[in-house]
């Protein structure tokens, strides 16, 4: 096994790698070695490994095309087991010791891929294949095609197991955000930062420098990287500047908000303890400077996807940055001057340049198009590459028509450079083709964003530095900072790039436009013939540009091919829309720490620990955890526990934590008037020291919430709301106060969290409370009758509030104490109540008892019911204005045919009821046309010994005693039920009064 860090292709010196250290890694199970500073791609190329993937659709051998984030081919899976991450470009993976990567889209191995037979049948997979296939018999699609295609065409495999890595979200604010730390970005950051502005500089690479890392350029008479290092050092020395490396700005949103993905742990196998693998930044910037550069575009010719065919700039990057030769005998093919530099750098590094093939006639070339003596230069284009798993030769078609074949082991190609303008268009801005610069440019820049350097079609170093400095200082000045112009170091004058759009090949099947989605020039031409001649249609029909690389190396060539096929000019064809993210973002980064039970916050009432100590089983109700039942040894299930808890309340005394109910403190001279307007029920007549049940309506006349209103003083009230309605009701009350009636003298405060509240219920509840309150307080009926409310002091000095209200129908109270006293008060209730037989009860018992009493809850107050529907019309009989009063009187809502609340019992008392069952008259068909209502809440009644239910039924009041069918197709269970009056238990309320 060869594990030397560079067999053959590694240059003896140069490059930004640390030759003093060797890193061992594995690719497809085989061991290799590289150096710090390598990427997985450069380390593989150093070993002469070009073929690293199979293509998505045809399973063709694919090599490394690029040296950056635009890579469409060399996607690998990193890691094993639950830590496996698919679809990472090998060109962006920093090499680390022990790195383990696998190739994708191959089975059983990269070398012998059985699905490569797809190539032979590629006529069966033309453009629009997916759409056309849907037209075939549906059953065939489901059983045959889809499973086969899914197995064949995966882009890497997700692990299917929970990701062990952690991710986090972070927030940042700055005056100027500079995207890209190439020469333009560095100059912009420096220009802005020296003014004192808060500057963030984000760079996707692990090093600042941009293209300077890949070139042999000088700044100020020294190697350009000296200037890069000095500039970064100055920026990082400023407390107002933050430089993020391995960070890609993936989205731009309104209000100057940017999403930035930082790959924190990208350079090591294992993250440090508590260190996230990735961090998603939400950065608010007053101004953005886009210095994101440009991406080189490939040329389109037959077999242009063979391993060994790379972008010319990437060949240069491998030679200069990584000291790796992509080939020893290279053909350079281009439509611009830039690739000529590749030929020169290759020669300098000791490779042989077999030919430079330029599409442009000599007269159209610029000053950069010069080659050392002895290099054959041809005007023409590549017709076809030859080779199987690596390019071996290329056929060159000269402008004269003569064709010749040149042997080679690599092709460096360039179809010009395309500015990376995605962020400039995320808010719907449009691009237009700039014929002079031969690239797309924004129709106009948004006021809070500017561009500098190659992203603006300014491809020279001098232009980039100048534009960066101008943008940085300009942005700072516009924000009110005093910025002085940068004194820029001397650089060689720029040479224009002189690109022409690359000429597309004729309709040959294997001339690829989109490497990642396997879209060929023939597919584009077929789509045009079938009528998909608009760029957005072409994209969707052929999937061109829709892979994870988002068309970074394919969209432009697709447009060029579309223009040629339709005889239109690029100016007439808009580019397809860019949407965030610019590069793929893991779901983990988007979720951050909001996963599993941290998906949303969990709220615990202040005495939660007491219930936990008592062995409660908890249930989620909205964000709250509430005790459902308190099981004991010997219980056969929750029903046993619930029945015991109900019986305890009905016979002795039980305690239930109801702290989650919403509580709103209302004060002010106009508080009575305010409450009269927000409640449908009468409030004005409520006396001090009394509490009343009340209904709140929405403006459309339906019931919004129910609860109690206690009058604590002349101008002081305390409202309770349902648990689920607490947040909405409070917001609604603030709306009423601030928007509808701002002139009323009233103030509101939510005190849900400040007060804990316990229901103390049962015939011995008064006795129990008597043991808690200060001696001398008389809770007997004359002093504290039903619906009394007031302050009491507990024996331990706690200032508490007591309300004599009952949800269960027994003599009962609700005791409220400040949250800090909740724990000890609840413990004290159980201690003091032990001799009385006290027991805790949970939501199941609470629910069963409220149904026994016919009280409505969330299942009934569901937003579709009126007070009359709920049988609560008596709580809304008042004149005058209140929210919802006018529309509650609509004829439709007063219709007697509306289903009304009623009680239901199974005729066969042993039968169980199911909530949601629909009520149908006996003998009527069981269909929607004969649906007369439904069961909303059901429970087993421990008091009655059988199931009972609440529900809504048309003309329910007239039908007491009638039998109807409770039809439950969902559970496959029908029950014959009898309509009864509620309450089911103690209809005259005698127990309530104790």
């Amino acid at each position, binding site marked *: 096994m060869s594990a030397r860090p560079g067999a053959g292709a590694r240059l003896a010196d140069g490059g930004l790698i640390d030759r003093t250290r060797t890193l061992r890694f594995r690719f497809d199970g085989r061991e290799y070695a590289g150096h710090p500073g390598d990427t997985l791609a450069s380390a593989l190329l150093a070993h002469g490994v070009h073929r690293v993937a199979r293509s998505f659709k045809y399973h063709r051998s694919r090599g490394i095309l690029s040296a950056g984030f635009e890579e469409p081919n060399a996607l690998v899976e990193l890691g094993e087991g639950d830590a496996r991450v698919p679809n990472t470009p090998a060109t962006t993976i920093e090499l680390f010791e022990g790195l383990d990567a696998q190739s994708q889209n191959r089975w059983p191995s990269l070398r012998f891929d059985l699905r490569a037979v797809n190539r032979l049948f590629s006529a069966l997979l033309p453009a629009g294949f997916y759409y056309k296939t849907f037209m075939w018999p549906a059953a065939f699609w489901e059983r045959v095609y889809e499973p086969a295609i899914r197995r064949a065409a995966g882009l890497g495999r997700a692990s299917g197991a929970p990701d062990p890595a952690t991710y986090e979200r972070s927030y940042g604010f700055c005056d100027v955000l500079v995207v890209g730390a190439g020469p333009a970005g560095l100059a912009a950051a420096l220009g802005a930062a020296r003014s004192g502005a808060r500057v963030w500089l984000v760079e996707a690479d692990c090093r600042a420098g941009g293209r300077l890392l890949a070139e042999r350029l000088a700044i100020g008479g020294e190697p350009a990287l000296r200037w890069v290092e000095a500039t970064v050092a100055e920026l990082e020395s400023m407390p107002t500047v933050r430089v993020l490396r391995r960070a890609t700005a993936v989205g731009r949103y309104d209000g100057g908000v940017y999403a930035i993905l930082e790959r924190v742990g990208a350079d090591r196998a294992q993250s440090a303890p508590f260190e996230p693998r990735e961090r998603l930044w939400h950065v608010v910037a007053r101004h953005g400077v886009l210095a994101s550069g440009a991406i080189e575009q490939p040329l389109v010719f037959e077999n242009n996807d063979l391993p060994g065919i790379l972008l010319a700039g990437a060949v240069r990057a491998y030679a200069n940055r990584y000291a790796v030769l992509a080939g020893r005998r290279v053909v350079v093919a281009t439509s611009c001057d830039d690739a000529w530099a590749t030929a020169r750098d290759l020669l300098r590094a000791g490779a042989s340049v077999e030919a430079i093939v330029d599409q442009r006639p000599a007269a159209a070339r610029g000053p950069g198009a010069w080659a050392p003596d002895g290099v054959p230069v041809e005007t023409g284009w590549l017709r076809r590459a030859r080779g199987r798993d690596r390019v071996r030769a290329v056929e060159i078609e000269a402008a004269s028509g003569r064709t010749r074949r040149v042997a080679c082991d690599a092709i460096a190609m360039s179809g010009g450079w395309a500015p990376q303008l995605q962020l400039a268009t995320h808010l719907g801005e449009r691009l237009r083709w700039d014929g002079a610069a031969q690239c797309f440019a924004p129709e106009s820049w948004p006021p809070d964003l500017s561009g500098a350097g190659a992203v603006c079609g300014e491809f020279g170093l001098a232009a980039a530095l100048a534009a960066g400095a101008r943008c940085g200082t300009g942005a700072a000045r516009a924000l009110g900072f005093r910025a002085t112009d940068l004194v820029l170091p001397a650089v060689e004058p720029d040479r224009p790039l002189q690109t022409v759009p690359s000429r597309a090949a004729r309709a040959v099947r294997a001339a690829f436009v989109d490497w990642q989605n396997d879209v060929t020039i023939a597919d584009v031409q077929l789509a045009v013939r079938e009528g998909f001649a608009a760029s957005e249609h072409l994209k969707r029909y052929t999937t061109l540009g829709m892979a994870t690389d988002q068309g970074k190396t394919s969209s432009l060539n697709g447009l060029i091919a579309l223009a040629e096929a339709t005889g239109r000019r690029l100016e007439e064809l808009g580019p397809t829309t860019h949407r965030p993210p610019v590069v793929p973002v893991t779901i983990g980064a988007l979720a951050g720490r909001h996963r599993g039970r941290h998906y949303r916050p969990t709220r615990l009432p202040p005495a939660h620990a007491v219930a936990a100590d008592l062995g409660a089983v908890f249930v989620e109700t909205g964000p709250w955890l509430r005790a459902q039942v308190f099981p004991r040894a010997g219980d056969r299930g929750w029903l046993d526990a619930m029945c015991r808890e109900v019986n305890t309340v009905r016979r002795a005394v039980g305690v239930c934590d109801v702290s989650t109910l919403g509580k709103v403190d209302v004060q002010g001279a106009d508080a009575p008037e305010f409450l009269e307007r927000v409640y449908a029920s009468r409030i004005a007549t409520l006396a001090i020291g009394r509490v009343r049940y009340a209904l709140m309506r929405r403006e459309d006349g339906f019931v919004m919430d129910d609860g109690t209103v206690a009058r604590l003083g002349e101008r002081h009230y305390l409202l309770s709301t349902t648990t689920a309605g607490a947040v909405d009701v409070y*917001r609604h009350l603030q*709306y009423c106060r601030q928007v509808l009636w701002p002139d009323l003298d009233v103030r509101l405060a939510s005190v849900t969290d400040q007060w804990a509240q316990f229901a103390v219920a049962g015939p011995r509840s008064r006795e129990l409370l008597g043991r808690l309150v200060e001696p001398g307080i008389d809770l007997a009926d004359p002093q504290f009758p039903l619906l009394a409310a007031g302050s009491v002091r507990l024996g331990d000095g706690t200032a508490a509030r007591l309300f004599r209200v009952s949800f269960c129908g027994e003599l009962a109270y609700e005791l409220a104490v400040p949250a800090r006293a909740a724990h000890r008060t609840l413990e004290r209730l159980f201690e003091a109540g032990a001799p009385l037989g006290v027991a805790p009860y949970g939501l199941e018992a609470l629910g069963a008892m409220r149904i026994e009493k016919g009280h409505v809850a969330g299942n009934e107050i569901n937003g579709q019911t009126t007070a009359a529907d709920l049988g609560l019309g008596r709580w809304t009989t008042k004149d005058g204005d209140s929210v919802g009063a006018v*529309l509650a009187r609509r004829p439709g809502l007063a219709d007697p045919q509306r289903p009304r609340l009623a009680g239901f019992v199974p005729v066969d008392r042993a039968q169980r009821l199911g909530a949601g069952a629909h009520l149908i008259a006996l003998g009527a068909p069981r269909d929607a046309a004969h649906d007369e209502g439904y069961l909303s809440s059901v429970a087993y009644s421990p008091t009655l010994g059988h199931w009972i239910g609440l529900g809504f039924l048309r003309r329910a009041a007239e039908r007491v005693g009638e039998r109807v069918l409770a039809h439950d197709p969902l559970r496959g269970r029908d029950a014959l039920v009898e309509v009864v009056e509620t309450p089911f238990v103690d209809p005259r309320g005698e127990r309530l009064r104790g």
Partner: protein
Amino acid sequence: MRIPCPFCGLRGHEEFVVDGDATVTRPAPGRPDAPTAAVRFVYLRDNPAGWHREWWFHAFGCERWIVVERDTVTHAVGRVWSAGDPAPGEDR
């Protein structure tokens, strides 16, 4: 989107709850066409493409209801003022 709360300053929209159209006014009670006016107030809404006035509640801030002028096409935020106040430069 960021909203310049008149009380708290520029804050992320995550802190707010939006409640829609602020151009409709609750009809005075007791007017003869009360049912029609109430239906208009509750149900009928314009859906302008461009500048609009909306009610926003600063739930994780000052708990004030504010009027936000927002361009529904671009999310650009214009003038912002507190409930109960007239729009800047307009009479109540």
